[in-house]
């Protein structure tokens, strides 16, 4: 974008709306292009953060940090086969690690069960919301690489090949990780469910 050109306040789809084009425009100073990238990936990054923190409030804070960091570091992003969303996931992963280091104590299942991720879900389907909270508690216990694969494959619905490209691994390695991650998550879920049931019996 040439300096002095009027800044577009909106972008249409098509070629101009590809991630690559938007990143180029944002690097050149087009705020609306960055706004469009934010719009596209806000919820996906929020869900990733939710899987790290287990609570909506913390996930919102973390998502906020991720996009501000992305804004500051977008000039250093070079595509080279790595999709922009993978760049965001990488920032999110590092931001989550930084945040975990500063947390005084790990999340407890009790805390998660009493703060479901969505109040609307509770009203719509209480048992599903409790299951979701327990699942989020279990997700927070996973190793980073396991959680990344679970989130990208089963929550966001990326193919094993896409996840492999984003994480810099082979497709086979992603499938192996996926298998182990599901096994681990199932165990963590069962443990978290038992803890939650114990809490209910005590109260």
């Amino acid at each position: 974008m040439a300096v002095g050109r009027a800044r577009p306040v909106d972008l249409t789809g098509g070629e101009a709306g590809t991630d690559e084009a938007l990143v180029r425009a944002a690097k050149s100073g087009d705020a609306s292009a960055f706004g469009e990238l934010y719009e596209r990936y806000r919820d996906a990054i929020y869900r990733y953060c939710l899987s790290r923190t287990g609570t909506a409030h913390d996930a919102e804070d973390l998502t906020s940090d991720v996009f501000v960091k992305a804004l500051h570091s977008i000039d250093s992003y070079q595509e080279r086969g790595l999709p922009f969303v993978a760049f965001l996931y990488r920032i999110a992963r590092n931001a989550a690690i930084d945040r975990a280091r500063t947390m005084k104590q790990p999340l407890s299942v009790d805390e998660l069960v009493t703060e479901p991720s969505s109040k609307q879900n509770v009203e719509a389907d209480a048992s599903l919301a409790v299951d979701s909270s327990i699942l989020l508690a279990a997700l927070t216990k996973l190793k980073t690489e396991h959680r990344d694969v679970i989130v990208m494959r089963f929550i966001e619905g990326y193919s094993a090949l896409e996840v492999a490209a984003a994480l810099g691994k082979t497709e086979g390695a992603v499938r192996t990780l996926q298998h182990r991650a599901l096994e681990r998550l199932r165990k963590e879920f069962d443990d978290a469910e038992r803890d939650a049931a114990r809490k209910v019996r005590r109260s």
Partner: protein
Amino acid sequence: MNDDRLVRMLAALRTERMERTADQKLRARLENAWTVRETQSGLGWRLRRPLATSASSFARRS
């Protein structure tokens, strides 16, 4: 807990969305960060534009 149930529950998390108030707060934070970025990168000419124009770039489109 079997894999099918676990995968179904994970897929259900796909409906999670950031709450509107948090989204608005984040847009405002990004707007401020963008202004700082422009200042630091020497694109001062942009600051002469009305703030409303800049703010609308992050405004929700729906």
